[in-house]
């Protein structure tokens, strides 16, 4: 496997987990210090979304990087996984 690809996936996952942990700690402390303040809940929700987006972003980066390297099979597989994830979002909306 390509070293650049691995480095980018590693960076994306690390950044995603750290930033969501930060948002969740911030949101949680806001929720306890000022329970009537809606901002705490919004920050927590943002933390959830950042967290869920992280593995999806890793797959998206695989799709983009393999497309640049003209690795058709990996590009198609990654795009198909992304489409299935979109199906999940669509089904969740019903």
């Amino acid at each position, binding site marked *: *496997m390509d*070293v650049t*690809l*691995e*480095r980018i*996936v*590693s*960076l994306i*996952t*690390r950044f*995603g*987990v750290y930033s*969501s*942990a930060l948002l*969740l*700690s911030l*949101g*949680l402390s806001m*929720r*306890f210090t000022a329970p009537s303040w809606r901002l705490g*809940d919004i920050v*927590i*929700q943002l*933390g*959830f979304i950042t*967290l*869920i*987006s*992280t*593995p*999806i972003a*890793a*797959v998206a980066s*695989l799709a983009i990087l393999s497309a640049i390297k003209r690795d058709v*099979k*990996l590009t198609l*597989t*990654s795009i*198909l*996984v992304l489409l*299935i*994830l979109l*199906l*999940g*979002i669509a*089904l*969740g*909306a019903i």
Partner: protein
Amino acid sequence: MFTALISLILALLSGLLGSLLGLGGGVILVPLLVLLLHLPMHTASAASILAVVATSTASTSNYVREGLTNLRLGVFLELSTTLGAISGAMMTIAMGESLLRVVLGLILIYAAIMMLRRMGEWKPKVSDGLASRLKLDGCYYDKAEGIEIAYGVDKTPAILILSYLAGVISGLLGIGGGGIKVPAMNLLGGVPMKAAVATSSFMIGITAAAAAIIYMRYGYCNNIIASSVILGALLGASLGSRITPRVRSGSLKMLFSILLIIVGLRMILSGVGIWM
């Protein structure tokens, strides 16, 4: 505040025990949240699946950097696992509390048996037709052995089907499903244990994210409980990865598998209404 603190501590313990025992934290966390905090199964599973996304993504970052993860194999197997996770999460919406408890109980007993089984019987295999066409074979540098290990992937269609099953269970109960994926890759496919664990961790993040989307859209995510559980699980897993190499987990595994069987039976009994 009290519930948040207890959820954080329970998640921390699950994350720690999970990495000591080589189990995912979710399979320990969900029954703890249901039995000790009396949370409904849906709320416990939603919080747990988010924690699973967090811990598996955090460990993926390390595994990928060390070159252990077979990204190509992981993405390919995710074709069926993600579909499984979506169907599992949709099934959970339709299923009642008691049936979910029974299924969780059965999975706990399965996890207990798997934990005691030796996984060491790995034989290098050549890639089958599908794996060769998709170039799913991989290699990594084993630091402990000091050698480069190259491997093929055999019985790819069977692993694909088992991965779907792992996805369904993950979506249904809010657990990772590594207990199915790792043996499938290792025993059927001939993927070395280290690569199988790393690839499964990468896959679990995506699978759990797919299921988490559905849990969130249906409003099962309790902000305070889920965020405490995520933070606790992350702390526990990072602590666990530090102390695991120094702990001999043989007797701990035996003790814990007995405990898992008891908790599993307790979940089944509470599901059928005998012992609430």
